[in-house]
């Protein structure tokens, strides 16, 4: 059973619907620690700012069960968008610590120096590049496009943790993986056939 964590950051119904559509009707949207404890996979969604999201996780009382599932039970866990950023040690300008499951920091896009007119947030469809082979990104069509909405991006300390990269002004990591912990910066649930393939891969890990 896949638990989609509901810690109060927007509508995650489309993730559950996409899972249903690709043949995995058994997922639940939950903030119940017991249900999360019973899950064999976890999706951590999220939109918005790092500090606000992390604060909500801290206040949700779910930190212990999430740490247990991620670090001791080592079940597959996928962070989506802000959910991926929360996997890092923290954001460069935020004050609150991240989950620290991926050795990385979250940084804000800064295009002022380059004198560019790229907009923040980065919003739109972008092609991604595969950095290393992994079942999560298996069978993705070449090229694959995903839909992004974000102002922050993840900087891995260890390049080996990068699964996919993307270019928006700079090359940045748009998917991470370290052992059982995975993350995607894009909204897989809004990326129709590409998102379906990726979520299918995750559901079948």
């Amino acid at each position, binding site marked *: 059973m896949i638990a989609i964590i509901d810690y109060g950051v*927007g*509508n*995650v*119904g*489309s993730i559950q*619907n*996409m899972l249903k*559509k690709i043949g995995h009707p058994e997922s639940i949207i939950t903030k119940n620690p017991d249900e999360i404890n019973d899950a064999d996979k976890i999706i951590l969604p999220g939109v918005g700012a790092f500090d606000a999201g992390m604060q909500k996780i801290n206040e949700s009382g779910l930190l212990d069960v999430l740490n247990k599932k991620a670090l001791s039970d080592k079940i597959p866990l996928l962070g989506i968008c802000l959910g991926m950023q929360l996997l890092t040690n923290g954001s460069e300008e935020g004050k609150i610590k991240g989950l620290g499951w991926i050795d990385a920091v979250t940084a804000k896009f800064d295009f002022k120096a380059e004198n560019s007119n790229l*907009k*923040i*947030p980065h*919003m*739109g*469809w972008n092609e991604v590049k595969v950095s290393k082979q992994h079942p999560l990104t298996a069978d993705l069509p070449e090229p694959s496009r995903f*839909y992004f*909405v974000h*102002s922050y991006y993840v900087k891995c300390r260890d390049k080996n943790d990068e699964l996919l990269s993307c270019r928006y002004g700079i090359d940045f990591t748009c998917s991470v993986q370290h052992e059982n912990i995975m993350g995607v910066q894009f*909204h897989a*649930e*809004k*990326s*129709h*056939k590409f*998102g*379906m393939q990726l979520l299918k891969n995750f559901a079948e890990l």
Partner: protein
Amino acid sequence: MPCLLYYKRGLYKTIKFKNPSYVGDPINAIKIYNEKEVDELIFLDISASVEKREPDYKMITDIATECFMPLCYGGGISDTEQIKKIFGIGVEKISINSSAIDNPGLISEAASSFGSQAVIVSIDVKKSFWGKYEVMKGRGSKSIGYDPVSFAKKMEDAGAGEILLTSVDREGTWEGYDIDLLKQVTSAVRIPVIVNGGAGSISHFEEAKKKGHASGLAIGSMAVYQKKGMGVLINFPGRPELEKILS
């Protein structure tokens, strides 16, 4: 991208903003678009502002939950609290029409709070009896005394991230986009312009892209009917076909 019109709890298609005819259930249509590699969907509640009511959040939630592609919602938006609520539901962009005319300050507020990319201003344009383009309000019923070029520039200055430019005269006609109107607006603003109203064939897309410099192409009738004058068929042109023409 499909541009769907919601009216009286169903999907409707109009001709020149009039004679709404029922084309089906919105959720069902979205489920079909989910299969078709649609990269964005515009969903407009065309009765909200006219009836002076707030957006129907329950309906927007149902739509957003079913939609496996980025969603733009428009209809009845008049303040930032509503906008916040709509983004919270899982909608990626909002489209503002009536309130952009009545209260351009809302565009600036929305752009600074949520990013200009998430804020589309929808402009309805009609040719007057004298052949002059005029921006219209109230579902194309009343001229606001602005020409589309100055109004589009004003909206760009206010912080709009994108313009949805609809020709009232072409809407639902299958006769092709108004390329002249499109050219006037795209050459006056730097922000992307989505052209809407009149698409009836793939060749109209090419024209709008190459001659009119449209950034996005909205389709209404083509997305819900088989052909002009024929029955309802929720559909979308295949990607290979589109790529061949638009690349």
